[in-house]
């Protein structure tokens, strides 16, 4: 069941974690594992992504665990998590120390403002790529849109929104079964699989 060696998994996950700046970082995994390396098919990624989103916990670390598990079993899950979280934690710890000593002046604040804005552009594109490949049918699109409006502009509590929308989604598909929103899989764009 192991698709890649543990060492390669650790190196690639650590690099994915280290090169992921900004929010919505799951998109980096899509870029790294699906688009670039073809280790994971798009439909598999969408399944794992959904699972990591609806499970409690920071979704980037959840995704690392689930993808790591898919690629290399239990060890893959554990090492995937460590590779993604530990380097960033040490870097942020160093930054926290510098911050506590007042090392961040006006210049750093301005730089951070520009970087945060750029991150929004990146995250929008990468998220759109995932979304476009995963929604099938009008019902799926409607549920996604409602969920977005509720947690985005309306700023309703996430937990309540997830519970209500999941129930609604179940009901919709139960009374009128339709195509699986993630299947059939879109052909993987893997060039060097």
């Amino acid at each position, binding site marked *: 069941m192991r698709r890649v060696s543990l060492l390669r998994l650790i190196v690639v996950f650590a690099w994915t974690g280290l090169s992921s*700046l900004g929010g919505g970082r799951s998109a980096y995994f899509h870029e790294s594992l699906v688009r670039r390396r073809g280790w994971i098919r798009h439909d598999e990624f969408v399944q794992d992504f959904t*699972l990591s989103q609806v499970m409690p916990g920071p979704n980037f670390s959840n995704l690392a*665990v689930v993808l790591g*598990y898919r690629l290399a079993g239990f060890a893959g899950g554990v090492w995937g998590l460590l590779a993604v979280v530990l380097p960033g934690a040490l870097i*942020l710890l160093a930054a926290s120390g510098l911050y506590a000593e007042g090392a961040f002046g006006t210049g750093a604040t301005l730089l951070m403002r520009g970087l945060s804005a*750029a991150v929004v552009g*990146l*995250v929008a594109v990468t998220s759109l790529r995932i979304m476009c490949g995963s929604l099938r049918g009008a019902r799926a699109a409607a549920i996604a849109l409602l969920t977005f409006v509720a*947690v985005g502009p309306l700023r309703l509590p996430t937990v309540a929104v997830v519970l209500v929308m999941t129930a609604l989604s179940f009901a919709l598909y139960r009374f009128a079964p339709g195509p*699986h929103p993630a299947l059939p899989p879109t052909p993987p764009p893997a060039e060097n699989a």
Partner: protein
Amino acid sequence: MANLALLTWTFLWLSFLCVGGGLGVIPEMERQAVTIHHWLTAREFVDGYTLSQLTPGPNMLVAVFVGHRVHGLLGAALAGLAMFVPTSVLAIVISHHWQQWRDRPWAVAAERALLPVGVGLMAGGVYTLARTAIHDGVTAALAVATAIVVATDRVPPVVAILAAGAIGWLLWR
């Protein structure tokens, strides 16, 4: 000692509130850390969140920043462990069983129902992020320019972001 236990416990239950991306839990985390426990000021919390955005890895590493403010190295370690370890153990248990259950009808139904919700949450996360980071014409232009550059697939995303940050710095300086 009591403070450390409180810190660990707070991030433990906050970690279980992170559903559909960490962005959703930020308001509650700020309420706990700033308003209720007075571990740091609102300004420091925002700075910490921006730092966690701009350093690699999950942005929920902001827990490490808060922990560090509360009790140095030990606080940082405890907050980080509380944030990531319990939910990750749960994730590995679930994914272990999910691989076996995946083909059962109820599992297919569950995935079918959950997927659009997950997509909506992702979009909501982008929205929240935009609301915190885009204040004026320059920040909006930087975001749009980065999006266009990233969409062409010609430059590594990190390079595009660093370039935009440098341009912003030059404009505001």
